[in-house]
């Protein structure tokens, strides 16, 4: 089956170790994750994963079922690019003198809608957001002018047609609020604890 980009959106409990459980499902089939983003969702206590992979639809459907099977996963969706509105963010650190001296660079940055984040005598940091290809093109261009550092964020995506689950999520949270996570609060008390 032909591989194409799929974005998988997963709603989960906000519990420790979820990334591991979910990424295991990809790695056991030797599937590379192109990008992964975790964030809160619009509903407090429920987490949202956005995962980008290139695979055949059949495989992606099976993956989603195995993800949904995890006890702490509420729902997993998969979508093609056409069904989504998505963005990736990027940060660029460029030598200040290059930007000051080369008019072309300035025009380039304007053209790609890059915004200045920090200005220092030695370098300037820009940020931009957009589709992968746009960011890749800008990166390629800037490399020619001594790009010092570059980082791109994971894809985040909104499903064009996802009103359905939102109400369900709210209902989940209303009926049973998520418990607080117990993190290891003992870690800073090491000296006080007796060990054998």
């Amino acid at each position, binding site marked *: 089956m032909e591989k194409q980009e799929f974005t998988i959106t997963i709603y989960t409990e906000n519990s420790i*170790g979820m990334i591991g*459980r979910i990424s295991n499902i990809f790695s056991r089939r030797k599937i590379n994750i192109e990008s992964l983003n975790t964030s809160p969702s619009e509903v407090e206590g429920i987490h949202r994963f956005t995962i980008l992979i290139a695979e055949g639809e059949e495989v992606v459907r*099976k993956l989603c*079922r195995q993800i949904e099977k995890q006890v702490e996963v509420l729902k997993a969706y998969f979508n093609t690019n056409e069904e989504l509105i998505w963005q990736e963010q990027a940060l660029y650190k460029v030598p200040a003198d290059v930007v000051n001296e080369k008019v072309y660079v300035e025009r380039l940055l304007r053209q790609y809608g890059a915004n200045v984040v920090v200005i220092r005598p030695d370098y300037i940091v820009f940020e931009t957001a957009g589709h992968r290809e746009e960011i890749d093109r800008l990166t390629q261009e800037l490399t020619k002018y001594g790009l010092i550092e570059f980082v791109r964020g994971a894809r985040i995506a909104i499903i064009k047609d996802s009103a359905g689950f939102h109400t369900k999520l709210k209902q989940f949270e209303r009926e049973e609020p998520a418990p607080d996570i117990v993190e290891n609060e003992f870690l800073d008390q090491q000296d006080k604890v007796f060990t054998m």
Partner: protein
Amino acid sequence: MSTLEKTETKENQKTTVASQLTGSQAVLEALTHEGVDTVFGYPGGAIMPIYDALYDYNDRLKHILVRHEQGGIHAAQGYARTSGRVGVAFATSGPGATNLVTGLADAMIDSNPIVCITGQVFASLLGTDAFQETDVVNITSPVTKWNYQVTDATEIPSVLAKAFYIASTGRPGPVLIDITKNAQLQLFDYKGYKACDHVRSYRPAPIVRKEYVEEAAKVINAAKKPFVVFGQGIILGKAEQEFKNFIEKGGFPAATTVMGLSALETDHPLHVGMLGMHGNYAPNVMTNECDVLIAIGMRFDDRVTGRLDKYAKQAKVIHLDIDPAEIDKNVKSTVPVWGDCKETLPLLTEMIDKGNHSEWVQQFRELEKEEIKEVIQDELNPKGDVMTMGEVIKVLNDLTGGDAVIVTDVGQHQMVTCRYAKFNSSKSNVTSGGLGTMGFGLPAAIGAWYGAPHRDVVAIIGDGGIQMTIQELGTIMQFGAKVKILILNNEFLGMVRQWQQLFHDKRYSFVNITSPDFVAVAKGYYIDGNKISERKDLRGALETMLNHDGSYLLEVMVGKENNVFPMVAQGTSVSEIRLK
């Protein structure tokens, strides 16, 4: 939803006296409230507080000290399989916990309801490479249905309630709870134990969609050559009777997977044998002849399907399963029926026409005759001097009448036993199906006996597998499980040897395994035993074994280079099954 049997009473649930308990006591309170009567375990540094508390629970909880944690979890699996209840294993942190991993993987793939409790280093030491610290939650996450680390005792009652609920509902599976030592020692206000009946992100069984059941009934009613294949889902769903009603009303021939054995009694007139690589001839061939294949509570393992692109391509496939991830995973279904078969089977039975497919069933019987002539006859009544595994099972069937619990290890003896053993009632077959774990047999048999102490438990094990977990003879010696150990010794790692013979030009590479004097080893553990190598002694020796009050080890020397046939060679279609 298939909640597994619990022996708890309503009164037990209401003990809400607020009092101070330690985390360890709360663990044991949870177990007693869940109706656990037997725990298999091994103590160690990080689980010592729980073992300390256990000292006071001797009257309510039986603890079986195994000789290795792997033995502990396999015993818990055996217990779960014969009792239908949750099996519980204790282990300490680090090596104790990592020794559970094989059993967890086995329980995961064979859907055994297991709760493992592991000790862990103090929460303050997590991540510091402390003595006997391993990251157990991460190590075990691919092989558990759910796992969780407790660092605060107040969580223990609710987390354990959730553990038992998740392990036993829906498609069962193993759950591991890792409890740091500080949480075990911590005193807290205990507010009583409340069993869990709901987890908001977890749906044990999908909602039954009636339109699909109707659609399935329509397809079944139009079938000329319907064929039912069933798996362990029938046993896990406690739907043996519902299943029988279904096939009897429709008059459908039905074949079992290895894991489904004993869900339908072997002698049932519609039982047409076992599927798969070493299954029977007829059900394998007929898979590619039927027009409707009705799969119930099974997952189309590659050992069942053979080559997938040549598997039942002519048939419409109806797949009943509780786990939505199994639908269309390997075999594309024409009509999927999501849900617990305890619920879906009666619905479906009601909608199907009363049928009689005796001519179609007769075709299975004709093929069976061929298999009897080519394979079974010689296996059960060999003409040569050396004994076959099959004839040992045949005599065993005569003596037990099919009422015993049969536990097997992995390999040739397992396939021969699954092919020929007679089962009269459900939960009588205990074997490692999906994972194929050598060393499973002996410890699983110990657990199986505690799960069904009034039944005869016969562990049939090869000379290779027994040597992997032979230390569990010590557990039998100390606690007296009345397990009958039947070693079928062919002086080879037989299944691997068979493959080397058939597919690797008989280049026997490290399959020649030598054995100790098993009877002497048993004697060292104060277990009686006997060894035979001649046919004339077989019946008497088996009788002595079965009549012996207590555990007994019988070693039977069988033919060295016998092969298990029929066989669907890897990469071939089920209909290309070879008889020799």
